[in-house]
């Protein structure tokens, strides 16, 4: 299949993730939107790795997955801490970093 088709799919997944992040307010969903965006980027790497026959792209995806794991661990524990404090998971209420 054409490389461009893969790229379009990857872009779509990224954009869907970004849209999800911008419109939803449940932190869990936001978290999953981030995963979507990461996967869109990962897919770009795999596609280009195949196109240019360079396995470095695969290594990058490996790193992305490791990063996602770290992010999941930290992000979800923050989520738990916030929920314990407020019993809500609404991102719009978390504006403590307001300037």
């Amino acid at each position, binding site marked *: 299949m054409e490389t461009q088709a893969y790229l379009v799919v990857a872009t779509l997944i990224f954009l869907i993730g970004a849209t999800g992040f911008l419109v939803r307010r449940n932190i869990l969903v936001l978290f*999953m939107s981030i995963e979507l965006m990461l*996967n869109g980027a990962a897919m770009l790497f795999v596609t280009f790795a195949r196109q240019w026959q360079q396995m470095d792209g695969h290594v990058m995806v490996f790193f992305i997955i490791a990063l996602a794991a770290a992010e999941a661990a930290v992000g979800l524990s923050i989520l738990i801490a916030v929920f314990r404090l407020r019993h809500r998971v609404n991102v719009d209420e978390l504006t403590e970093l307001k300037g």
Partner: protein
Amino acid sequence: MEKTLFLILSTVAVVGALVTITRKNPLGSAIALIVTFVALSGLYFTLDAAFVGALQVLVYAGAIMVLVVFVIMLLNLPEGELEEERIPPRRWALAFFSVVPLGFLCIAQILSATPPAKTPVAPSFGSVAGVGRLLFGDYLLQFEVVSLLLLVAIVGAIVMAKKKL
């Protein structure tokens, strides 16, 4: 055959992604996301990336998403919290004006390019051995740094999620 496979997998992935961001209940989103990840894994296989595809299923769809589902269950969100208020038009506008131009630009660029035809690959391409050799050769330092990152994340997760240390 290949084309059919691609079409099926990519459709599943995109639809799964859309379902992920539209479900009210986060559990539904999580399951849709797992479906998306598996579909993406299949796409990786069609791109001769066997190792990465396997990782995608094992780590992403397996470990990370299990953790997410765990947390969803653990929080046991009250009914009212699941109710997503009607998304206000202001937020739609924000999403529309930032995502649509970006998507338009990216896809236009992708379609206007004419990459050279793909050439067949060696059997070792994308195999565990091939990626492993790179990982422990050229990318050894980065690999070690990533292990450090995971360690920090573990410690951080414990510190934040535990009630009292």
